């Protein structure tokens, strides 16, 4: 008796779960019908994407637009990190690899070994802006070394006068994104990673950029940093500090042009997608990548990145059309190249 009633209740629970499943399929069907009445796209298939969690929002957003037009294509976007993404890419586990840095020589070698050919497509710039209060009239520009002394380690300087004796003897108030954010990681990578140190622990951390903006805007002796797209929205309340490029010793503002030309170094970096050429034969991947390139300028701005210059996008488009395989960031001898995207993303640098 007891067991029959147990079995019965279990069965009821199971039915409840399975009706939940039915509901899922009906809701999605309904959503698809209302969202995409225009094209009777019959495109089907599964596209697997993995890689940088920085690029993941762009891929997610592109995916979102794409499935409005092609509701039956299933796109899995994972964000396990650039390195892990490349690993599954050369193991033929994914069609597209999101990357917040160019492919490394070792990864390129692995791709060759495993017979994976790819098209390298830059999709956006990620810039990082260091901002101060508009009333701050002493900071004209900052060098990387000055930033290091201000931000790195728990023995970082306390007062503005410790950075430069001519500056006021007031405590530096720092407003920074939370440790879980990619921006924090990136800032840490540029300033502290090489010396094996951490950023100072006594910053005002907040995941909400609005609070960072407010913090810097309300306090004359404060400094903060976040993505450049966010600064663009709050130009009236903040002042961006020009950063001295370590190579040519000149200070550059984080303007779109300076970011795009890599003059605003070391705080700008290009973001990429790498597409397996074998997957490009598939109608769904082909359509998706075309859609990706066509929409990435608007979409990446929307999710907080800087669009690439027209010339680079045109080059990317022609590379995709011609299926030009190989990378621009590793030279013939297998050494990594470094420099501005606009200088390196050229035909003569393409190594198969």
């Amino acid at each position, binding site marked *: 008796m007891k067991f029959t009633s147990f079995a019965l209740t279990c069965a009821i629970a199971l039915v409840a779960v399975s009706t939940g499943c039915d509901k899922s399929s009906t809701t999605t069907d309904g959503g698809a019908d209302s969202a995409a009445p225009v094209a009777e796209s*019959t495109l089907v298939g599964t596209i697997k994407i993995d890689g940088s969690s920085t690029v993941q929002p762009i891929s997610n957003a592109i995916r979102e637009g794409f499935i409005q037009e092609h509701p039956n294509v299933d796109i899995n976007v994972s964000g396990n990190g650039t390195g892990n993404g490349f690993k599954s890419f050369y*193991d033929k586990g994914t069609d597209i690899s999101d990357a917040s840095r160019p492919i490394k020589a070792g990864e390129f070698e692995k791709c060759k070994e495993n017979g994976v050919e790819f098209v390298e497509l830059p999709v956006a710039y990620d810039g990082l802006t260091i901002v101060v209060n508009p009333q701050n009239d002493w900071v004209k520009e900052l060098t990387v070394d000055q930033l290091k002394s201000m931000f790195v380690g728990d023995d970082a300087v306390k007062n503005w006068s410790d950075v430069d004796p001519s500056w006021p003897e007031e405590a530096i108030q720092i407003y920074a994104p939370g440790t879980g954010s990619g921006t924090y990681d990136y800032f840490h990578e540029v300033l502290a990673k090489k010396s094996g140190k951490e950023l100072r622990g006594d910053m005002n951390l907040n995941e909400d950029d609005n609070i960072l903006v407010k913090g810097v805007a309300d306090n004359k002796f404060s400094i903060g940093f976040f993505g450049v797209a966010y600064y663009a929205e709050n130009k009236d309340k903040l002042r961006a500090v020009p950063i001295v490029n370590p190579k040519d010793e000149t200070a550059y503002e984080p303007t779109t042009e300076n970011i795009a030309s890599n003059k605003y170094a070391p705080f700008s970096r290009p973001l990429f997608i790498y597409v397996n050429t074998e997957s490009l034969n598939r109608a769904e991947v082909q359509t998706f990548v075309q859609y990706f390139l066509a929409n990435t300028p608007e979409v990446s701005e929307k999710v907080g990145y800087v669009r690439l210059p027209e010339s680079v996008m045109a080059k990317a488009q022609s590379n995709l059309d011609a299926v030009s395989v190989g990378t621009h960031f590793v030279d013939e001898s297998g050494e990594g190249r470094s420099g501005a995207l606009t200088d390196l993303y050229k035909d003569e640098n393409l190594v198969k």
Partner: protein
Amino acid sequence: MATVSSTPVDGGNSPHGTGFAAGEYSVTTDNSKRRKLYSRLFYLLCVFISALSVVVLGVLLVSIGWQGHSRLTSDLLQNSHSELNPDSAGMWPSIVGSIFICGICALSALPLGVGTAIFLEEFKPTSKPLKMLHSFIQLNISNLAGVPSIVYGLLGLSLFVFMFNVFGRIQVNESSGTELFGVSHYYQVLSLAGGGHTVLIPQDDESQATISVDAPIQAVDRDGKKFELAIWDPKSGTPKPSDPEVRQRTVRKGQVGGAYSETEWYYLRLPFGKSFLAAGLTLSLVILPIVIIASQEALRGVPPSLREASFGLGATKWQTVRNVSLPAALPGIMTGAILAMGRAIGEAAPILVVLGAAVAKNSGPQNLMDNVVTMPVLIFNWAGRQQAAYQELAAAAIIVLLAVLLLMNSVAIYLRQKMRVG
């Protein structure tokens, strides 16, 4: 604490839990006042400690509720993750995904765990080597209960996702692994109709991943009807067909197409790949030791006299287990199972290892080998975002996760109560 231990031990001869009653018995002793005071202080300490945990829980719930209440809308329950419109983003696919994964987990871990517990408790061996084996297994199960879940995640990755590469690897552009049933292979080719209209061509040779269409060929449309696919050669000088119907049945000469696998819901292949089946089985590994230990405790709590009576009436071991031990232990087993499932639904680490960090999916699983989004992974992702909207969403999603957990628990508690009465 030191003062409490320095008092004469009176716990042994006075009734437990009722500090006042103990005082009444000892009115005649000279230190009765002090003992009474200590007893009262200890009682207050207990109340304070239990109240403290309730307050901490309350503060957590209130702060989460404060942060997330504005997002507890029907949007949250109906929509999926949205990057472009955080204001209307939701978590429906993750709720379905979590329920499916927990279903797989319960279906595999509970029978296995209870079965193991019955074997270890009710069928104890008598010979020496078997006894040693028994205690060895027992020791291992107790230790496994303390292993961090990410270790199980890594185990699940090689065991279920890759199956040690015995059955081949799951690779893109290849019908890889050992596909058992529920799948048919096609090539998908773009037709002249544009707008993403495609035709399917049945795939004969599975090793050939791409096809180039140069001559008329048999194709199928979406209703499964076969038709002859026409070819249009731009170089021949004939104009592109203008009738949309014809365009849908024509492809450009030399058009390439890639392999496409059409799957039924029961599609199964080995290895499982990054699927919710693999994730559910991995989670079942995480909770298996908990289920076994809880079930063992429950079975141990059944008075031996009941079993002896059953044996005395001539029942076999199986009959005793079925009719006496198991029904008596079932409430305890259910309690263990509820706790274990509560842990399973909240686990993020093994899911991240096995399924990856995908969050943007519009529906629950379409087949057994499909990837899903789960609530803990979605919350993890949202909580790490910079935008305030996602922070609120994360808080609201935590409330939903708690609600689902409570719902599952209350169903299980209801079942338990029902069984106790029946």
